[in-house]
């Protein structure tokens, strides 16, 4: 395991460098997210307290599907250009490849969220900066990336790869979506928001489990 982190970061970095040139993935996630939020905003023309109730759900539906969009691309690009084979040929622990791709996905999703969150807050008349909302967003995004990277790698080797990722991914991340929606609701509501931390813990447990599972099975996922 020589230089595990150095190599994982190098894998993430080359994704970032390539993305900085093309902006393919981040732009499509961004456009999609903003459109969904705007459409929802029109669809629920409602009172302030109703807004507070639906807003967290809207936010996480948006992030879930934007995540699927981005993570699918990250492996499809790698595969179609033959680069996945190049990576597999390297004398790397498969965990390094997983971690690198996962970090890249995590960073791209965070980047999109940094732009989408303020738009969301303005459109739904919510406080622009809620630290607890930020915390839950970062953690739930990490959870999405851990599971999504594993499933995207599985999906890319199947024939129905375009819809395989959402079919595998969404049922599994339901607990994360529920936890994120509940915790976001508590973070946005006035008051102490009891229960926030237990939702957060649930997400942390999910991350730990998915990291462990991915490290165990990623080797078998990548091979043809």
């Amino acid at each position, binding site marked *: 395991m*020589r*230089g595990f982190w*150095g*190599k994982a970061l*190098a894998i993430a970095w*080359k994704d970032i*460098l*390539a993305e900085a*040139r*093309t902006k393919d993935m981040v732009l499509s996630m961004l456009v999609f997210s903003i459109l969904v939020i705007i459409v929802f905003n029109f669809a629920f023309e409602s009172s302030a307290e109703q807004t507070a109730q639906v807003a967290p759900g809207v936010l996480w539906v948006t992030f879930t599907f934007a995540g699927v969009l981005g993570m699918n691309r990250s492996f499809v690009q790698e595969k179609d*250009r*033959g*680069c996945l*084979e*190049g*990576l*597999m*040929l*390297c*004398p*790397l*622990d498969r965990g390094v490849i997983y971690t690198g791709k996962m970090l890249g996905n995590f960073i791209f999703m965070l980047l999109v969220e940094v732009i989408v969150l303020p738009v969301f807050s303005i459109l739904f008349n919510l406080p622009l900066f809620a630290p607890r909302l930020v915390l839950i967003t970062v953690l739930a995004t990490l959870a999405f990336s851990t599971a999504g990277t594993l499933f995207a790698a599985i999906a890319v080797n199947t024939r129905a790869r375009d819809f395989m990722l959402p079919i595998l991914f969404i049922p599994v991340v339901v607990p994360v979506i529920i936890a994120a929606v509940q915790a976001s609701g508590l973070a946005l509501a006035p008051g102490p928001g009891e229960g926030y931390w237990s939702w957060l813990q649930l997400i942390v447990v999910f991350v730990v489990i998915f990291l462990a599972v991915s490290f165990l099975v990623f080797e078998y996922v990548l*091979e*043809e």
Partner: protein
Amino acid sequence: MTSGNPWAIEAQGLTKLFGPRPALLGVDLRVPRGAFLSVFGPNGAGKSTLIRSLATIMRPTAGKVMLEGLDAARHGGEVRRLLGVVTHQTLLYPDLTAQENLEFYARMYDVPRRRERIAYLADLVGLEGRLDQVVGTLSRGLQQRVALARALLHDPPILLLDEPETGLDPQAQGMLGDLLRRVDGQERTVVMATHSLERGLELGDRLAILVRGRLAYESTKEALNLEALRSTYRHLAAAGE
């Protein structure tokens, strides 16, 4: 490495099925250390499948691959460090420059003094002044030169090449032979799949012909000249139709 074992590459009963159709069928192959094996065969004969199975990219349906005495299925990490591979695809990221691609892979292979090594290889494959160009905008032949440099980054003792001459101009094809020799004078073991009987005969000291996934013919170079190779190839290819 394993001094008692003269074989750099050993394949036993190598079989790869795609559905019911075999791409490789019970291929037994032994390549001594330092040898250069040229593999010929018609389109679809299984040359790429053979290279990919030896390279650990593809898991064979049955059979075993040993590289420098190590079972490839069990010692993936160590075995991959021994291999330099060129396939039909360049394995390069089209949105990164040649330099960025090579630096990335050099890091993955723990190549010491990366920049010097890359500069040296770029010079060797004739990429002067092209390193800062985005790979997607390079011509096919220039991309192939980067792919060759990529495979040689860590100066591997074993090279597996699938039609390495793809896209190269005659001059670059001519330098392939020099390129494949090792810097420190140590012998490199090479398996090269090619459609060019001339080139394969010129570079290789052993020759094999694959037909429909079977090793139909094996010989050493001394036993053959180009004419004999041509007629053997034509005969076997026709029999495989």
